[in-house]
């Protein structure tokens, strides 16, 4: 594929959301400037961006811990999901034991547990990491477990006829077959990741975008609250987009598959 073709494809993906974003921002600007006319209630888009730009040092300084928490928590969640999903695939008893608890873990209201985590684990990294992991590991584990289970029975028989061990069948058929499912789960869970970290900071932290946002709210700097939200949204979109880049890298064969097959696993 030539660079020009790739560029055109990227542009084709990007222009509709860009156009919509520009339209929404223009609408916001108009409403704030001519209808509300009170920066304490709704600052204009331009006020938000220029205020954010002035404190870019603070925003960056607070974004780093949030990103660290997100990355660490997500790493933990990633490792846990592979471990648990693999155990579930190898042992039916493990599957039956773990699945209900997995589902139950998702019904824990984060609002309730975040302050508890702070009380138990303190103001440092740990409670945030745990909260990010809690918020993200279910979609990852569930999509992986489902992905493993879709391995074709005939394919498993073929491997068995070749003399493959259970582990070989797992590594050579079930894992690669599960990857498209895994990436779907990854995209769902990565949108929770930064949000989870921000929320955990809200419950108590020394620095981070969550606590910064709270401080700005208390200082009546609504423009900076909005600027922080903008940064969080941008980071989430970047993370989300990076999953597509990673997917292309890890599953290079999928670009040759028929489009119908490629969308089959989307929720």
């Amino acid at each position, binding site marked *: 594929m030539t660079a020009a073709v790739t560029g055109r494809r990227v542009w084709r993906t990007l222009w509709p959301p860009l156009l919509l974003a520009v339209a929404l921002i223009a609408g916001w600007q108009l409403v704030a400037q001519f209808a509300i006319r009170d920066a304490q209630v709704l600052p204009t888009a331009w006020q938000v961006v220029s205020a954010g730009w002035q404190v870019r040092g603070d925003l960056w300084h607070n974004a780093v811990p949030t990103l660290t928490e997100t990355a660490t928590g997500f790493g933990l969640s990633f490792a846990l999901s592979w471990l648990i999903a693999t155990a579930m695939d190898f042992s039916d008893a493990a599957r039956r034991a773990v699945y209900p608890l997995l589902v139950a873990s998702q019904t824990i209201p984060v609002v309730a547990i975040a302050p508890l985590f702070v009380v138990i684990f303190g103001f440092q990294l740990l409670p945030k990491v745990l909260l990010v992991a809690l918020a993200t590991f279910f979609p990852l584990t569930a999509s992986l477990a489902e992905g493993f289970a879709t391995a*074709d029975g*005939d*394919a498993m*028989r*073929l*491997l*068995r*006829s*070749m*003399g*493959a061990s259970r582990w*070989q069948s797992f590594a*050579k*058929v079930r894992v*690669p*077959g599960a*990857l498209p499912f895994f990436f779907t789960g990854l995209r769902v869970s990565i949108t929770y990741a930064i949000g989870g970290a921000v929320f955990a900071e809200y419950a108590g932290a020394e620095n981070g975008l969550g606590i910064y946002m709270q401080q700005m709210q208390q200082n009546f700097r609504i423009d900076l609250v909005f600027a922080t939200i903008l940064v969080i949204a941008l980071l989430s979109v970047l993370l989300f987009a990076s999953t597509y880049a990673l997917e292309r890298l890890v*599953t290079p*064969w*999928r670009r*040759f*598959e*028929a489009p119908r*097959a490629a969308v089959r696993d989307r929720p």
Partner: protein
Amino acid sequence: MNAGGGYRLEVRGLAHEFPRSGQEPLRVLDGLDLAVRPGEFTAVIGPSGSGKSTLFNIVAGLDRPSQGTVFIDGHAATGHSDQVAYMPQKDLLFPWRTIEDNAALGLEVQGTAKKAARAAVRPLFGEFGLDGFERSYPAQLSGGMRQRAALLRTVAMQRSVLLLDEPFGALDSLTRTQMQLWLAQMWQRHAWTVLLVTHDIREAVFLSDSVHVLTSRPATLAARIPVDLPRPRTAQTFLLPEFARLEQQVLGALGTTSDVP
């Protein structure tokens, strides 16, 4: 237990039942005998539901029969899959592996290093009409090419018996005929020992040295029809009066003719 007679593959007194809840067990095979000499191309044909797949799975060592024994080169090999290479009906090429990695899978699973396995399969690509497609993914290949790649994977395992389960069943009729001609040619060169399960009379007669006709369920051997058509088989073979006579004979043994007034 030993079997003589110089057969590469021999199946004796094969019987198989599937348990059914609240009913008599379903008897699928009922004392089936079958013998294939080294380098012989043998077809098994039978009405649908006659237990062809069951027979196939037993010979492939994937299932154990209720009764009976499978011999390979005179040695009991029931329930062992290490001497039979199995080519399933669907090509089952893995979409995430390139064609050469798919072809090398059997060797890899048996412990050959990935590089060595690739090197071992690569020389076969020309003969299988897949030159230049080593690094392609299955999704980039046509149906016929995929089927040839699946056969390549089967042959590359270097096992003594090839078990082909309706290998061309999913192809359109033109491609299927081309594949049959190609397979006949390949067999001519390599003299593989092949057990072909099919429901295509034309295919069975064209490719085989003998056709085993199964009865409907529970299956026993209805007839063993030797096919003495001249080798090598080519497109001309289809035109021989002898070919039509053999087709009729297989049809007769299947009991189909008596159903038609």
